[in-house]
């Protein structure tokens, strides 16, 4: 018997897992999402009643759970999911933010959007069809975005007689493919979203499976890595200077720690200026602390009064990044207007936005077979390609492989503010020759 206070303590001590789902139109993604929400008691009576009423009005016998997630008029009218939606549910162990990404034509940019903030991606496969092109695309996007954990949910096991062989074949093929792309951790789970096997409750139909259910896995997968291993990065967002009678000399650099750990007494370097100082104090939203880590929002005070403003990056002097004006990256093009060689754009990296020019587009990747097409001249919506960008000012850019936060950037159209492309600095599998590549650009080695 727990008291109210204990219950409250239990609820507040949970961690947060952000995950994304990917699946094509008919492989049961809505059913899986619906079941996770339903079986974790996250669908409330009034929402379910609304769905039942609309389903009945349309002459459907059973409530259409997709109506829970299709929030827009156009989505309901057309019966498709147009845009990424975010859902929230909780168990006693963890809170979840689910980026529900549509499996339709605009799959790449939508999945990139959902995967950019995800700690985990669930890739759905229909057990009858196995690994198909779409599955490979989903695996490739998860690998490109460096989502730390991937779950392969082999769905509709009820339609293949709950056979271990069917599952094992798909799991093996997917794991081999995704590992090749560099996905660090893959967990394969045989499920039936419709019947509820291994989603929230363990299945009685698959004795041969000894692993976790989907929910169990979501509840227990680690959400943060050992951040002491990553070098600390602190993009300055805003300078706090009260200039009040009470705080005449306070000068704090506000920001969210992008990676690693910062400690009082640590020697730091400010980039791009290269000036150095020592962390004198860390104010963690109201209390003074000795140590802080990503992704905490804090305010740093430095020993020396040096010129620091929004867009600067503070890093430990021992592991400060190099600065560069030549950015080589893999980008996913997310806008309807194309991105061509010679385009003048804005590049937004952490808290810094600089002018930039697209010098080269060395290759475009076809996700279906990972083939490379040299010098496409431009990228259009949903394309993934390599770009070389020259920036007007130096950037303290990490490789995306080392830090998702300080290795990522946006390309923005300066004319109308449209977000053109999502960029990931440094090497990725898209920079290596997988199949058809002609390496012919000077100074560019594949």
């Amino acid at each position, binding site marked *: 018997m727990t008291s*109210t*206070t204990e*219950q*409250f303590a239990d*609820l*507040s*001590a*949970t*961690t947060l897992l952000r995950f994304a789902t990917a699946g094509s139109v008919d492989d049961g993604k809505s059913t899986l999402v619906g079941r996770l929400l339903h079986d974790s008691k996250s669908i409330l*009576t*009034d929402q379910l009643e609304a769905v039942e009423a609309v389903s009945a009005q349309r002459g459907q016998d059973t409530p259409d759970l997709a109506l829970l997630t299709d*929030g*827009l*008029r*156009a989505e*309901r009218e057309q019966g498709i999911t*147009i845009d990424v*939606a*975010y*859902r*929230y549910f909780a168990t006693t162990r*963890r*809170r979840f933010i689910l980026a529900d990404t549509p499996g339709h034509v605009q799959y790449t*940019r939508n999945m*990139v*959007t959902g995967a950019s903030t995800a700690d985990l991606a669930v890739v759905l496969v229909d057990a009858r069809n196995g690994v198909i092109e779409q599955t490979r695309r989903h695996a490739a996007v998860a690998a490109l975005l460096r989502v730390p954990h991937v779950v392969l949910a082999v769905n509709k096991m009820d339609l293949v007689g709950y056979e271990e062989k069917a599952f094992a074949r798909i799991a093996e093929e997917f794991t081999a493919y995704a590992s090749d792309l560099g996905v660090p951790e893959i967990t394969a789970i045989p499920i039936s979203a419709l019947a509820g096997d291994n989603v929230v409750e363990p299945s009685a139909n698959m004795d041969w499976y000894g692993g976790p259910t989907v929910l169990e896995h979501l509840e227990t997968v*680690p*959400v*943060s*890595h*050992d*951040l002491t291993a990553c070098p600390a990065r602190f993009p300055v*967002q*805003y300078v*706090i200077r*009260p200039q009040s009678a*009470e*705080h005449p000399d*306070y000068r704090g650099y*506000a*920001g*969210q720690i992008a990676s690693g750990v910062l400690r*009082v007494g640590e020697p730091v370097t400010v980039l791009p200026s290269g000036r150095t100082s020592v962390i004198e104090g860390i104010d963690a*939203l*109201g209390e003074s*602390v*000795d140590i*802080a*880590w990503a992704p*905490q*929002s804090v305010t740093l005070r430095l020993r020396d009064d040096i010129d620091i403003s*929004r867009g600067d990056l503070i890093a430990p002097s021992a592991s400060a990044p190099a600065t560069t004006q030549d950015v080589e990256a893999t980008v996913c093009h*997310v806008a309807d207007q194309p991105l061509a060689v010679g385009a003048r754009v804005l590049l937004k990296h952490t808290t810094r936005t600089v002018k930039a020019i697209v010098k080269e587009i060395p290759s475009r990747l076809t996700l279906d077979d990972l083939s490379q097409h040299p010098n496409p001249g431009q990228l259009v919506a949903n394309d993934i390609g390599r770009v070389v960008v020259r920036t007007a000012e130096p950037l303290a850019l990490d490789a995306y492989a080392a830090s*998702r*936060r300080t290795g*990522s950037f946006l390309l*923005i159209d300066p004319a*109308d*503010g449209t*977000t053109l492309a999502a960029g990931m600095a440094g090497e990725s599998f898209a920079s290596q020759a997988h199949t058809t590549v002609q390496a012919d650009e000077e100074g560019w080695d594949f």
Partner: protein
Amino acid sequence: MTATVAHVHEGTDAPYALSHLDALESEAVHIFREVAGEFEKPVVLFSGGKDSIVMLHLALKAFAPAPVPFTLLHVDTGHNFPEVLAYRDRAVEKHNLRLHVASVQEYIDAGKLRERPDGVRNPLQTVPLTEAIQRLRFDAVFGGGRRDEEKARAKERVFSLRDEFSQWDPRRQRPELWQLYNGRHAPGEHVRVFPLSNWTELDVWQYIAREGIELPEIYFAHEREVFRRNGMWLTAGEWGGPKGDESTETRLIRYRTVGDMSCTGAVDSEATTLDAVITEIAASRLTERGATRADDKMSEAAMEDRKREGYF
């Protein structure tokens, strides 16, 4: 004085995990600071309701020990709960803030808006709100909207671009990648910003409890003269109820949301403390809006339609 690190989550493998409330707080503070760093004239929509109170609390923490670098804007429907208006004014005074008020009643008195036959004033807020944004030239407008509230809101970005008519076009939203918020906008356009996007109702209450934030009394169980309309308990008053065969009774109730009295329903409750409220919400089988908002029930896409026109 140096405290040891607060709120470390024990019992996980990772030594440097954040509790879910710390993660949400850190994200919201980051959003406030991004806006402060990139916009010329931001404003915080402040109604005296719990979400806007949490927003103000986060903004105070984000810029401490400096003052909040934003003004506040309240769209006063003319039918607000007096306790909430009193709270609003106390908060403004306490933190030495500047408050703009856009008044629905003034628009009605001037003949620029017409009272609806049902007396519901929530939808009438859109015009005074959008005109205040244009007149006062705000380029970023913080709202307390959460994606868990409603299915159209689940599609909303953290940074949501609005055109010169304040319209939201859900099919032309910018993809939002990583924590790189794109606030670029043309003159006349503005950006709506939702720092609480990823919070749920329960998160808001747990955070209020953890931080010891004071709320208007109407959020806690109290006796009140109410009457039944459209399946909800509404506060009796000069705004338009009870009418005809509706009759008042005194009940022990509390409010889950705060809005216009004409369309904000109370729930039966004995919860007089924060802990009791949290227990009640954790066990509730109704959403916040389903339980208490009449205007969302007008049609299946009521929220989307109002948002398209410039509502939050």
